[in-house]
């Protein structure tokens, strides 16, 4: 079976690892933006081919597809989906796993996603206000309170400003930051010509985050186990937002800080959103879909955002645990015969993924690029772990060079978080900078300390949302504006 993978990073490397074990013995073809040595090797070893192209260009991808004539095409990242790669391929009659551009709107436009949730009254929705016009946003922000400011378009998982503003004595300073950030963000988002609204101001919530991924053919929804990503760049959840510095999973389908009920409710939310989306765009959603969730006091399971693809690094956690024929599942989804399909996982083990990035990531990609780096892959394998190649390029001199984002992901599994943690820490140290440029990873991910902290936070949050449920306040945030009445609007600040 010929499988054509579109995409260049760690996510696509994880997908190739997952499908290589299939009884269909896939020959893997890859279209990537740069020479990712991991993807290159998977394609060469399976007798496929690799191409360095602009993966977001539908015409180029279509041309290569016609040349290869693959049995299945997997569109990995969101940008090719946004630019219509899946659409063009389907028009040409290819079997494609990956959201169409209209379905991928759920990730691309946060306004579309939020509006959909409100229109269909899906639980776990947050209050928001979106702006096309900088003047209007500027005015609004003067009166905004405890909010998050986001780009209205998906921008590589970055650009979110979380501004807890519950203390009047610091609210002027925060308003100043909000004001400046709105300006800055408008300027940045205006680069994208493919979006109407530019920024989003959203109700701030706090709690424990987790990702709920599913595979769907537009009717049937096949849930995958919950995984927790770690968006902060630095240890102990400090520092700037990244695409994810590592993730944990298991044992089984839930995480130690999520209950079965919360898992079920999460899957309901995700399925309801897919259902609403299919009705709204009148097109089946075929591909991977994920809810970036947070357990909050406002709602319990709450939607932060959606991905129209597998989460990265979340998909990497699946590499050691999936027992089913993953290629068969993707193929059945792509052919719209997912009904009856099952994913079997090893429910006894846990997995930890850690990303390693060059200093400069995520705020200064230029600074983080072009540094020679190496990994002792044999040693990592001896430890029972796997290396996934992400933002790293094979240079003409045979050395690996950083591309500015997370360079590698290390995937380890075992019987307990304690065991796996020890392993993964050893494995991560096999990645070495060759020019003394600092590289970093998060040693706290998967540690007992952080896990206990999550359990504690989740317990506190659970008490809050359960008592709010009892009082009929789930999802509500009431504000009394004298003269106007009691409003359900959590975006207003101290100064009105």
């Amino acid at each position, binding site marked *: 079976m010929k499988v054509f993978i579109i995409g260049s990073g760690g996510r696509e490397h994880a997908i190739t690892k997952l499908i290589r074990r299939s009884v269909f013995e896939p020959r893997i073809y890859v279209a990537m933006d740069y020479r990712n040595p991991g993807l290159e090797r998977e394609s060469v070893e399976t007798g496929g081919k690799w191409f360095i192209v602009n993966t977001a260009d539908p015409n180029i991808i279509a041309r290569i597809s016609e040349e290869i004539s693959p049995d299945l095409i997997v569109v990995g990242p969101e940008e090719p989906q946004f630019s219509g790669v899946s659409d063009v391929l389907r028009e040409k009659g290819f079997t494609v796993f990956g959201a169409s551009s209209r379905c991928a709107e759920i990730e691309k436009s946060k306004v579309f996603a939020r509006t959909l949730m409100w229109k269909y009254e899906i639980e776990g929705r947050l209050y928001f206000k979106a702006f096309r016009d900088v003047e209007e946003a500027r005015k609004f922000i003067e009166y905004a309170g405890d909010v998050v400011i986001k780009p209205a378009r998906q921008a590589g998982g970055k650009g979110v*400003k979380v501004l*807890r503003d519950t203390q009047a004595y610091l609210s*002027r*300073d925060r308003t100043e930051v909000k004001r400046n950030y709105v300006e800055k963000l408008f300027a940045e988002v205006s680069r994208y010509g493919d979006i109407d609204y530019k920024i989003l101001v959203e109700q701030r919530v706090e709690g424990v985050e987790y990702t709920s991924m599913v595979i769907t053919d537009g009717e049937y929804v096949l849930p995958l186990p919950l995984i927790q990503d770690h968006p902060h760049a*630095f240890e*102990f959840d400090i*520092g700037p937002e990244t695409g994810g510095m590592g993730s944990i999973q298991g044992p089984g389908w839930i995480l130690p800080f999520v209950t079965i009920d919360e898992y079920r409710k999460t899957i309901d939310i995700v399925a309801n959103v897919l259902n609403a989306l299919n009705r709204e765009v009148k097109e089946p959603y075929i591909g991977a879909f994920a809810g970036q969730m947070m357990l909050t006091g406002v709602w319990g399971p709450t939607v932060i955002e959606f991905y129209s693809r597998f989460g990265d690094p979340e998909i990497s956690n699946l590499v050691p645990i999936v027992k089913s024929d993953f290629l068969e599942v993707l193929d059945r989804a792509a052919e719209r015969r997912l009904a009856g399909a099952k994913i079997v996982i090893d429910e006894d083990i846990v997995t930890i993924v850690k990303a390693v990035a060059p200093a400069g*990531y995520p705020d200064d990609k230029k600074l983080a690029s072009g540094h020679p780096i190496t990994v002792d892959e044999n040693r990592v394998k001896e430890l029972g772990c796997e290396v996934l190649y992400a933002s790293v390029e094979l240079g003409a001199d045979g050395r690996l060079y950083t591309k500015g984002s997370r360079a590698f992901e290390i995937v380890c599994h075992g019987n307990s978080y304690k065991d796996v943690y020890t392993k993964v820490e050893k494995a991560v140290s096999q990645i070495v900078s060759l020019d003394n440029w600092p590289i970093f990873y998060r040693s706290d991910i998967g540690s007992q300390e952080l896990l206990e902290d999550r359990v504690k936070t989740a317990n506190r949050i659970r008490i809050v949302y359960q008592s709010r449920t009892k009082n009929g306040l789930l999802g509500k945030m009431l504000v009394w504006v004298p003269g106007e009445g009691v409003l359900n609007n959590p975006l207003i600040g101290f100064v009105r």
Partner: protein
Amino acid sequence: MNGIISIYAFDELWNLSNIVRYGLMAIQHRGFQQYIVCTYNNDIECFSSENFDDIHKHDIRNVAIAATYSEPVEEAVIVEKEGNEKIAVICERPWNKVHEFIHELINALKSNRNRVEAFKNTINSFATYSSPSLAILTNREEVVIWRGSRLTPLILGGYGFDMVIVSSESVAIDILGGDVKRFLKPGEGLYISKHMLKTLSINHTNDCGLCFFELLYLARHDAIVDGVSVYEFRKALGEELTKHLNNDVDVVVGVPETALPYAIGFANKIGKPFEMAFIATGGRRRSMLFSDPFEKIVSIHLKMNPIRSSLEGKRVVIVDDSMVTGSTMKTVSQILRFRVGVKEIHLFIASPPLIKQCPFNIMKLDMSSLLAANLSQEHAKSYLEVDSLHWLSKDDVNRVAKMFGLRFCGRCFGLELFGGEEI
């Protein structure tokens, strides 16, 4: 004794003046009415003042290290420049090796391409079991924070994706709207720059406990120290004190404002009412931290206007956290006797007698004026005009320390550790 706070905003949109101001206010009780701030604005700039409004005269961009302090300013902060390297170091308490340390550090930074390693190695070569904590700012906008030993805590906090806050006390992180992320381990350090935050593991010769005064007196009731709630710990010591009660009493009061939770714990345990007894005038002042005896007595007097109705004619248990010179308690007993007219005073001190100097300079105790080191129990009772005087024993403190999983330095009480294996 100082309180340290350090703030690093990864994003240049912030002006930190107000944030530094409220952060310092939150740890004000740890030092004195003076503070020092070092910032980076094309160059390292340090300023000190007694007035928080002065902070606004300075433009604080995205980084600051700061402290409230009580010693002369030249001991609290040292700024040195050699070649291209300029460094400011804030010491949590006077450190005689600080100049040598800075010199070595600058040499290491000059000769090592890996700056994180240079910091780590230099700190390692100076680390002892009782090193003071340090906050370091460089002219490359790097901040290094080091919890020098177990004696005094440091807490790591974060604010959204924007900021890292490190403070001697968790309350500063609360007050700035941040989240407490971690109680740094003894010897643990942090390297923070625009593109990096790394934990520095420093060889740590474990054996000094946490300064007992941190939980006994220094930290605010709302603070969490090394994972332990100060308030709960104080209530537990108050409960422990009731073992020494052998009289009938009517009410329980605490010496404001530190001793209130001790009195609450005591009252809860014996089922007698806890009463408010004294109301302070002016802000909260830490009388014990004044070194000028006149200032100290002024501060005590301002805290002690009695609520007569709750105490008149009663048999009163009065609880305090510690007794140094006894001057506070003498004042209290005189007020209770002559202005209120109580029937009996039973004094309970939630710590053992203070009999030795602090070898680490955390508490500045003058041996000649330490009550317990100079007066017998009987003399003390008559001087203080109390009907009975009780202290927690070393065993009592040891028990409570173990209950909370803490180990304390007990040198000023005449022993190595509370909460250790042996006593």
